[in-house]
């Protein structure tokens, strides 16, 4: 390991320990590490934006076309118009002139909303709706996982049940409260209230949602543990390299 790499690893280890000091409480070391991270990330992002976006997309074309080429029709669209939109958008920085930047902002928001809505309808809404209408035929085969027979029937049934009960849990068209007030319970056994049919359906939907959130939480916990393992291995390797270099 070279010396710069060793120093970088050592600084990384120090910053890692500063972040882990949050275990004690919010302290200056933790805040200092956070500020360092935010500052370095912002500076790096600014440099990336200049080198990857602004310079090749805005400045270089202007120099390539030159002053005489600006009057050309193609340059008006590819060079002048972007510059005008950018300069107008900069007027948003001042409250007095912010209204002049509305055109650029409207263009950004309008195009972005249209792209997002179109993609959501064609890429999520329709495919996911069709996914909940799978055939219960034992002969059909899942295209990705290869499930078939009883296994697929069970999976498709679970998907159907989860979809219906989850939608009913959000009380579309029902007036009962989330706690089931106003609904006659089916029975009370040993102090435990057995809800009525509507309440039972909502309880099943609630269970599906709980399972989903549980899976997501387990995944997040798993990811966090992997990161913790990686940090501990990094500290171990850094200390090992440092002691090796010193020793």
């Amino acid at each position: 390991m070279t010396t710069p790499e060793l120093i970088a690893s050592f600084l990384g280890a120090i910053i890692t320990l500063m972040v882990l000091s949050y275990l004690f409480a919010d302290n200056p070391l933790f805040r200092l590490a956070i500020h360092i991270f935010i500052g370095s990330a912002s500076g790096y992002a600014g440099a990336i934006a200049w080198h990857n976006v602004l310079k090749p997309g805005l400045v270089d074309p202007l120099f390539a076309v030159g002053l005489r080429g600006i009057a050309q029709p193609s340059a008006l669209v590819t060079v002048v118009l972007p510059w005008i939109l950018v300069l107008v958008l900069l007027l948003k920085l001042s409250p007095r002139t912010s209204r002049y930047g509305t055109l650029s902002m409207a263009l950004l928001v309008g195009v972005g909303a249209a792209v997002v809505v179109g993609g959501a309808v064609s890429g999520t809404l329709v495919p996911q709706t069709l996914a909940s209408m799978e055939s219960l035929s034992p002969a059909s085969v899942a295209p990705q996982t290869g499930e078939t027979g009883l296994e697929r029937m069970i999976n498709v049934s679970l998907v159907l049940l989860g979809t219906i009960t989850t939608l009913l849990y959000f009380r579309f068209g029902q007036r009962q409260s989330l706690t089931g007030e106003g609904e006659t319970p089916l029975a009370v056994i040993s102090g435990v209230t057995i809800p009525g049919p509507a309440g039972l359906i909502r309880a099943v939907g609630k269970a599906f949602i709980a399972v989903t959130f549980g899976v997501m939480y387990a995944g997040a916990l798993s990811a966090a543990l992997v990161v913790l393992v990686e940090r501990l291995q990094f500290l171990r390797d850094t200390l090992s390299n440092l002691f090796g270099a010193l020793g």
Partner: protein
Amino acid sequence: MSEQRCPMCSRPNPPEAHECWHCGARLTPLDPGGSASGSASQPGSRLGGERQPVPPEQDWLDRIRAESEAAGEPEPDFTAEPVTGELPSWLEEMKPEGSPPEAGEEGGRVSAFKAAGEPGGMEAADESGPPEWLRRIRAREEERAQDTGESGQDWLSGLRGSPGAEPEPEDVSYPPRPGRDMAAPRPAAPESRDLPPERPRERPAAASQEAMPSWLRQAGGQDAPPGQDRAAEQLPPSGSPPTTPPFGLPHVQALIGEGGAGEAPLGGKPEGEVDLPDWMDAASLEGPAEALPAASEGEDSRLAPATLPSWLEAMRPVETFRPVVQIQTEDDQAVESAGPLAGLRGVLIAEPLVAMPRTATVGSMQLAVSERQYAQAELLHRMVEDEEREVQASRRARPQLNFIRWAVAGVLLFATALPVLSGSPRFSLPSLEPRELGSLFTLIDTLPAERPALLVFDYEPGYSGELDAVGEALIEQIMVRGIPIATMTTRPTGSLLAMRVIDRLGPRHDYVPGEEVVHLGYLSGGATAVQLFSLRPREAILQGFDLPEDMQEAGITAWDTPVLRGVTALSDFSLVTVITAGTETARVWAEQAKNYMGQTPLVMVLSAGAEPMVRPYYEAREPRVNGILTGLPAATAYERRMGQEGLAAQRWNAFGTAMLASEFILAAGIAYGLVQWWMARQER
């Protein structure tokens, strides 16, 4: 009340102020009264006040008459005040229409109110004996008596012959008192002595009840017991100074005759008796007893007494506005300071009516407020007050060590560090692998090697510890197959992560930058840029990132490198792999890019927390995602398929112990919660 409002301008004034500071209007009422009319000036003789019956020992008339006879003074002559106009409108309105005209009335007009000189007036009666209307009445009574066979004695002659009837006093004239009387002082017509006072005098008292019109009875004209003659009480003795009405009846000065004017004997009695009708007697009985002693005091007592019957008094419009008016003595009365009567004392003022302290109309309104509205008003009030309140800076609490936090952290750190530092315990690599892992492995294994694969590093540096380990196995398989690789990102820090991973794996498989691998860099613009990149990649990203120096010096962009030379669309890539930890990023690529990828597969390398939200895109009938690799177990299985040990396998032991410790902590937490729930249930 802290302040009083001016009745004229409604502005506030100090409570002790008598006049408005702003407009000069009188604030405290200037009570009329005093000794102007004798009886009205006495306490208890308030207009409309409660009248008390006169005790029988207060026979003031007898006493006055005795004094008069002893002094040999001539009897005063009472004159009626000339009334040239009609009856007051308020009195005219009270009279029912269609009531038959009675004696003393001509067309609803009382003859006693006629001015001097008018036919049937007092003056004419004085000159030629009884007035015309009285003569007609007498003739009518005589005819009736003859028809019924009764004696020729009418009620008037009966009264004349009644005991106690005394000669009517001589003419007594009273000088006009400017500014005191209701009517302007003018030469009054003499009041005829034999002038019957009012309508009921048409019939004897015994028959007055039956003959009284209904409207008069309803208006309060209650007859006194028959035979009760109060006329003598109304007339002061001859030579004695004029006195107030004996029982303190309300004094209507407009009906008082002027002194010195022509006079006529009341009731036509030469003896000076004034025969009041029974209904007026009843009214006079209601007068306050306190009025008697003061009736003879003061110069105003020279005014002729006149009374209003109770029914008439009750109809005075002033009563409707002012039930109690304190009539003060003349000395106590204030001088009028405004208006055309300025400078006069004792003016019957209308100001007290308007200057009567009363609550403003606006302020007296009471709102019907419900409890809820009151609570909301209180809430709003508190909110407004809270806005003005200065919030004290709360003292920062000293950080306290949380035992549970320390316990959880200690357990996790120990479980994770133990395998990292000591290498034990060791967990066997998973023998089971996810079902989608096989299809993904096959997919990568069958990719065309001549077309580049696009790797999208869309995750933050914080997730590099997981996603580097998960994605490394797949990237190694791509490199094993020799497929050119192009990287890009939609996050500013993604380029650095991509360069870091490629720099670590590339040398193992002899990947030369610019020849087998190239970095396109950062794509700005979010979902719109992803769609633009899917349509026209060369227009979305112009140059590239971290190209070799010789290429930069030659002005070669990433699109000119051998890796991307034949790529003009997203479908030209053999594989698009998105490595991300966020569901939103995965959704954007599935929604925006998949439509323009053609047969190019889209593979997601995901963090474990993002898998539940992306898996539906994979298991759909028309999948938007063709392969998923998620989590450290799947990565370990993928490395085992490839027959090598990578980052996933290196972290497997520590990950296993950390997961085991986490499961114990979760189980302990669940047990603690259940115990608490059970104990709370037992307590209930």
